[in-house]
């Protein structure tokens, strides 16, 4: 059976890509985590950034062009943390 399957994979290589066979394990793992999180809620916490009364002054700041990337396959910046508010970075004193 494995040889048959291998043949199928080899034959399929120019049509549907072979990595489609990863759908089973990936779907299984995703199901496990989705259900686990729904029951255990390990990822939940108080959203104080949103649920606190905050009065902010207008945001100040500036930007300066320092470099140019002429050719990359990455569609976005490395380590984008602009919406990961709780991920701490180096602390200036």
């Amino acid at each position, binding site marked *: 059976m494995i040889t048959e399957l291998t043949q199928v994979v080899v034959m*399929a290589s120019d049509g549907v890509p072979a990595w489609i066979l990863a759908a089973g394990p990936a779907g299984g793992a995703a199901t*496990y985590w989705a*259900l686990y999180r729904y*029951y255990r809620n390990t990822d939940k916490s108080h959203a104080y950034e949103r649920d606190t009364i905050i009065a902010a002054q207008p945001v100040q700041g500036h*930007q300066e062009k320092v470099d140019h990337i002429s050719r990359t396959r990455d569609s*976005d910046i490395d380590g984008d943390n602009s*919406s990961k508010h709780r991920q701490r970075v180096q*602390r200036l004193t």
Partner: protein
Amino acid sequence: MFDGPPLSLEEELAAARAEPEPGPSIDMVNESLADGVNRCPKCGSTDVRLRASTGQLICLFCRHEWAESRVEEEFGLGVGIDELEGTVIAGGADEISSDQDVITMTCTGCGADVVVDTAHAMNARCHWCRHTLNVNQRTPNGAVPDAVLPFRLTHAEAVEKIREFASKRRLFAHPRFKKEFVPENVLGVYLPYLVIDARAEASYVGRGEVQTRRWTEKHGDSSTTYYAADVYAVDRQVAFTVDDLTVEGAADRANFDGSTTNNIVNTVLPFDTKNAVKWNSSYLVGFTSEKRDLDVEELKPVLEDQLLSIGRSQVEGSLAQFDRGVRWEAEKVDVGGSRWVSMYLPVWLYSYYQENTKMLHYIAVNARTGETMGSVPVSQWRLLAAAFTVGTFLEGIAGWILVVSA
């Protein structure tokens, strides 16, 4: 560095002997109440407790109802946040100077000595004359807060919320949890929190990228998409005030690593802390309480961490031009001023100890807003069976697609 002419010996000695300057503080003691017997203002009975449906204290003898005043107006807690300087600490959030939890009160009704363990309760009934005795004076162990937010949800309403939460999570729940599920066992607990007003300025530096070009190159049969981008050095600053930021005042509840389910209790925040009233331990009759054991100094890093997160969420809106995203690399927060008030906040807590994993699971209900969150122990084999079934089904479809397209 030159800092003026040297002081004379007398001046040096006087400076060395001087008491350290006391920090600014707000005294929020409820002057009208004492430790021990506190009587109904109308009939003199001590059978006083909270009536959750009205949020008022009720005398069980004459049905007279009354309430303590809101601390928000009485102590001006909602105003002047943008002028706060230094660390202002209300009396109930003062440094904990004793771990003596058990206090003995003399019953003014009959003279008997009655013991109260203030780590878990703030009232006791005199076993001789049945008067209710209250702890109202400040204790050095952190058990008496500045203010209390009374329960609003009744026991029956909390049971209903917990039942509803758990009934949505039955199929994969641990069989033993389902068998032993008795939501009527939910307990009303006043948990200790520090409610903070603060004025801060946060600044961030990092890199942002703006896409300038996007193109696709063909390599034989496949093709690859490439991008070109400008890189910017970005900095942002924002000054802001926060009103009633709420953090856990008990070390046991403030630990959020994966070994506990404390995040569940944290999730039911926020409370309508503006409605908190002056301390009167009659509000606690019939409920348990947990004393505060963290000081302001220990919680300052927590405040700074939360202020940094809040600042980051505030500046996010100014980053729209960086369509490839922004990576913050360094950050800084200056807390210009903060005001700390300790409060007891009401939570209905259903707990379940899972023996095989030694994990204490909570289902918590915010007893003001009704927000419910919980952790339900799972049956691993059922979860794995579900995952395996879905996986097999998807694999079947994938195999079928491959065979058909071959």
